[in-house]
C-alpha cells in the first residue's frame, strides 16, 4: 500500500508546477516561460516573507512576542483552509485519470491518499513560506531553546492536515449539493462564494476582536493572556501549539494527535465510498428529448461573446477565483458606505494611515477590482478545444474582443455598485468624485487587457485539472503582479509626491494608464491564433 501511494504520488507530483514538462521539453519558449514564472514566484515569496517578517517584528516591537508563533499558526491554518477549499473538490474527486488509475491493480485508498499528497505538499510549501520568516524573527528576539525548534517543526508538518480535512469535507458537500441541481456549476459557484464570504467575515471579526482588546501600548503586556485565550477560543490547535512551546506535553500530543486522527478517520471513511462519491459527483444527466425548432442566426461577435459567458460559468473554480476580487471590492465599498472611511481604517487597525487613505481612495477601490482578472486564463481555459478557434474563419481580433468584452461585462456590475457605495461612504467633492468613477474603470480596463496579453504570452493548453491554469498558471501570476503594481506605484507616488492638485494627478495617471492599455491592446491583436499553441 505504501509503495502504491509513493508511486501514484510521484506521478501526481510530476504535474505540479509543470516541472516535469520543463525537464523533458525541447521547446525553448516553455523553458523561458518556466524561468519567468519561477522569478514571479520568487517575487511573491519575497513579498510574503517581508509581510510575515514585518508582522512578527511588529508584535515583538509592541511587546506581544509571546503570541507570535500561535498567531502565525492561526493565520496559516486559515489561509490553508481557504486555498485548499477552492481546489479540494476538483482535485480529490476529479474523474480525469481516475478511470485509468482505477483499472490498475492498486488500492482505492492509495489513489485517494496520493491525491491528498499533492495538496499536502503544496500546503506544506505554503506553510514553510509563512512560518519560516515569522519564526526566524521570533527566534531572533526570543532566543528559544532546542525544544522550540523541534515542536515547531512537528507543528508545521502536521499543520496542513486539519485545514485539508475541513476543506475536503466542505468541497465534497458543495459538489454534492450542486451536483443535484440543474445548473451545477452555478450552484457550486454560489455555495463556494457564500462560504468564502463567511470565512472572510469570520477573519475580519477575529481581527476586530483582537484589536478591540488592545487599548494602549502601556496595557498591552498585561493583555497577552487575554489575547492567547482569544486565539485559543477561535482555533484550539493554536493554543495547544502555544502551550506545547511552554512545556505542556499533553498539548503537544493534542497538537499532533488530533489533526492526525481526524485526517486518518476522514481518509478511512472516504476510501470506503470513494468510487460512489466520484461517480455520483461527476455524473451528467441527459434528457434525450430534444426537438429541433426555431433556430436563430446571430452576429459573430455576439456568438463568440455568448460562448465566452458559457465557458466562464461552466467552471465554479474559474468564477470564484476571478470573482472573489470583484466581491471584495463591493464588500469593501459597502463597509465604507456603512461605517465611513475613518471608522473602517480604525477597525482594520490602520488608524495611522487615515490621512493618506482619503487621498488614495480610488486606488483602494481599484485594488481588488484588478487583482484577479478572469481574462488571464481565458485562452488556457480553452484547453484541448483551442483547435476549434484556430480553424474557424474568424479574425483573432474578434475572438480577443469577445474575450475582453465578456470580462468587462462580468466586472461592470461589481464596479458600478462599488463606486456608488464608495461615493456614499466617502462623500467626495465633485472634482474628486469623477476620479472615483474614472480611475477604477481605467485600472479595470488595464487589468483585463493585461490579463489577456499575459495569457497570450504564457498559454497553457495541455492541462488535466482547471486548477493548473486558474490558480497556478504563469499568466495569472504575472497579470496579478502587473495589476497590483499598476495600483500600488501611482498610489505610493501620490502619497510621496503630495501633489498640489490630486485631480490633476489622477488625470495624468489615467491618461498614462489608458495609453499603456491602448498600446497593449494593439500589440495583442496582432498575435495570430496559429502562433499561440507553439
Amino acid at each position: 500500500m505504501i509503495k502504491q501511494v509513493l508511486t501514484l504520488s510521484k506521478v501526481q507530483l510530476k504535474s505540479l508546477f509543470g516541472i516535469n514538462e520543463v525537464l523533458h521539453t525541447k521547446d525553448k519558449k516553455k523553458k523561458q516561460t518556466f524561468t519567468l514564472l519561477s522569478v514571479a514566484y520568487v517575487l511573491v515569496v519575497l513579498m510574503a516573507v517581508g509581510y510575515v517578517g514585518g508582522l512578527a517584528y511588529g508584535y515583538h516591537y509592541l511587546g506581544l512576542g509571546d503570541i507570535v508563533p500561535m498567531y502565525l499558526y492561526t493565520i496559516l491554518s486559515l489561509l490553508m483552509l481557504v486555498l485548499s477549499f477552492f481546489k479540494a473538490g476538483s482535485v480529490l474527486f476529479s474523474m480525469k485519470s481516475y478511470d485509468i488509475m482505477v483499472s490498475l491493480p492498486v488500492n482505492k485508498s492509495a489513489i485517494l491518499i496520493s491525491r491528498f499528497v499533492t495538496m499536502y505538499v503544496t500546503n506544506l510549501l505554503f506553510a514553510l513560506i509563512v512560518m519560516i520568516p515569522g519564526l526566524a524573527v521570533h527566534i531572533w528576539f526570543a532566543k528559544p531553546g532546542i525544544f522550540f525548534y523541534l515542536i515547531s517543526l512537528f507543528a508545521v508538518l502536521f499543520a496542513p492536515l486539519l485545514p485539508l480535512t475541513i476543506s475536503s469535507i466542505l468541497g465534497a458537500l458543495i459538489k454534492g449539493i450542486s451536483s443535484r441541481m440543474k445548473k451545477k456549476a452555478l450552484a457550486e459557484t454560489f455555495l463556494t462564494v457564500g462560504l468564502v464570504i463567511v470565512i472572510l467575515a469570520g477573519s475580519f471579526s477575529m481581527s476586530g476582536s483582537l484589536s478591540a482588546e488592545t487599548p494602549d501600548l502601556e496595557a498591552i503586556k498585561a493583555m497577552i493572556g487575554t489575547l492567547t485565550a482569544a486565539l485559543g477560543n477561535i482555533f484550539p490547535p493554536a493554543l495547544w501549539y502555544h502551550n506545547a512551546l511552554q512545556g505542556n506535553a499533553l498539548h503537544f500530543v493534542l497538537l499532533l494527535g488530533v489533526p492526525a486522527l481526524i485526517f486518518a478517520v476522514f481518509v478511512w471513511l472516504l476510501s470506503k465510498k470513494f468510487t460512489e462519491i466520484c461517480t455520483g459527483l461527476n455524473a451528467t444527466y441527459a434528457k434525450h428529448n430534444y426537438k429541433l425548432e426555431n433556430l436563430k442566426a446571430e452576429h459573430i461577435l455576439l456568438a463568440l461573446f455568448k460562448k465566452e459567458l458559457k465557458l466562464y460559468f461552466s467552471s465554479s473554480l474559474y468564477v470564484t477565483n476571478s470573482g472573489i476580487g470583484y466581491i471584495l471590492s463591493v464588500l469593501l465599498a459597502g463597509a465604507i458606505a456603512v461605517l465611513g472611511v475613518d471608522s473602517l481604517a480604525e477597525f482594520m487597525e490602520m488608524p495611522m494611515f487615515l490621512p493618506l487613505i482619503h487621498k488614495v481612495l480610488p486606488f483602494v477601490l481599484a485594488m481588488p477590482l484588478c487583482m484577479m482578472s478572469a481574462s488571464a486564463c481565458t485562452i488556457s481555459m480553452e484547453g484541448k478545444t483551442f483547435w476549434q478557434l484556430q480553424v474557424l474563419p474568424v479574425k483573432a481580433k474578434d475572438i480577443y474582443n469577445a474575450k475582453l468584452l465578456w470580462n468587462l461585462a462580468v466586472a461592470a456590475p461589481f464596479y458600478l455598485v462599488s463606486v456608488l457605495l464608495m461615493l456614499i461612504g466617502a462623500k467626495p467633492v465633485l472634482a474628486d468624485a469623477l476620479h472615483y468613477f474614472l480611475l477604477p474603470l481605467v485600472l479595470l480596463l488595464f487589468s483585463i487587457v493585461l490579463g489577456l496579453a499575459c495569457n497570450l504570452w504564457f498559454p497553457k493548453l495541455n492541462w488535466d485539472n482547471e486548477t493548473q491554469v486558474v490558480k497556478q498558471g504563469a499568466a495569472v501570476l504575472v497579470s496579478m503582479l502587473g495589476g497590483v503594481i499598476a495600483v500600488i506605484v501611482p498610489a505610493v507616488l501620490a502619497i510621496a509626491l503630495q501633489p498640489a492638485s490630486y485631480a490633476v494627478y489622477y488625470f495624468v495617471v489615467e491618461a498614462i494608464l489608458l495609453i499603456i492599455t491602448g498600446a497593449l491592446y494593439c500589440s495583442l491583436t496582432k498575435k495570430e491564433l496559429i502562433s499561440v499553441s507553439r
Partner: protein
Amino acid sequence: MLEIKNLTKIYKGGKEAVSNLSLTVNAGDICAFIGHNGAGKTSTIKCVVGIHDFDKGEIFVDGMSVKEKPLECKQVMAYIPDNPDLYEYLTGIQYLNFIADIYGVSAAEREQRIKEEATAFELEAALGDLISSYSHGMKQKLAIISALIHKPKLLILDEPFVGLDPMATLHLKNRMHTLCEEGTAIFFSTHVLDVAEKLCNKVAIIRGGKLITASDTKDLTDGKSLESVFMEVIKE
C-alpha cells in the same frame, strides 16, 4: 481544390515531421491519406487547416494561399479532428448554432441541414443535452454535422470512422459520396485500408514525413489489395 506544394514542417527541437510534400486533391476527389503512426499525416492536415504554421512550401485551397488568405480558405473548408474535443459546456444544438453563426449560415438553412444530418446520425434527441454527457461516438457525429453545416468545398477529416457505430459509418460513407458528386473535395487520413480502397478514387501514402506515392486507387492497386500494396511500398 487543395494543392500542397513542397510542404515542410519542422517542430521545435528540430524534428522534421513533413518533408517537401506535394499533393493535389481536385474537386470531386475522395483522397485517402495513409501511413504509419507518426508518419506525418496529422501534421500535414494541421498545416492545411491552420492549426500549425509551416516552415517551407505553399498550400492553396480553392486557389487561395492559406498563408495570405487564411480566413477565406477556412470559410470554404471544414475539418474534423481525430479526437473530437468540442465545447463540453455547450449543448449539442448550442454548439451547432455557434458554428453556423461563425460561418454565417442562415437560420432556415441551418435548421434544414441540422435536421437532415441529426436524423441520419440518430442524434436529434440528444441535441438538447450538454456535450459533456456525450459518448465519444456521439461527439464524433456532432463534429461531422458541424462540418457539413456550411456546405464546405473542401472537407478534411482525420481518422473520421474511429468511434462511429456501423449505421453512422455507413451514413458517413454515403454522405462522402454525395458530397463528392456535388463537387466537394475530400481529404482524409485513415488506418482502415479496406475503407480507403472502396471509398476513394485517390490514395496518398506517407512515410517518415515524405510522400511515397499519390495516385488513382485503381492505378496504384492494379488488381492487388491496397493492404498488400501499402505493405510493399512501406517496406521499400
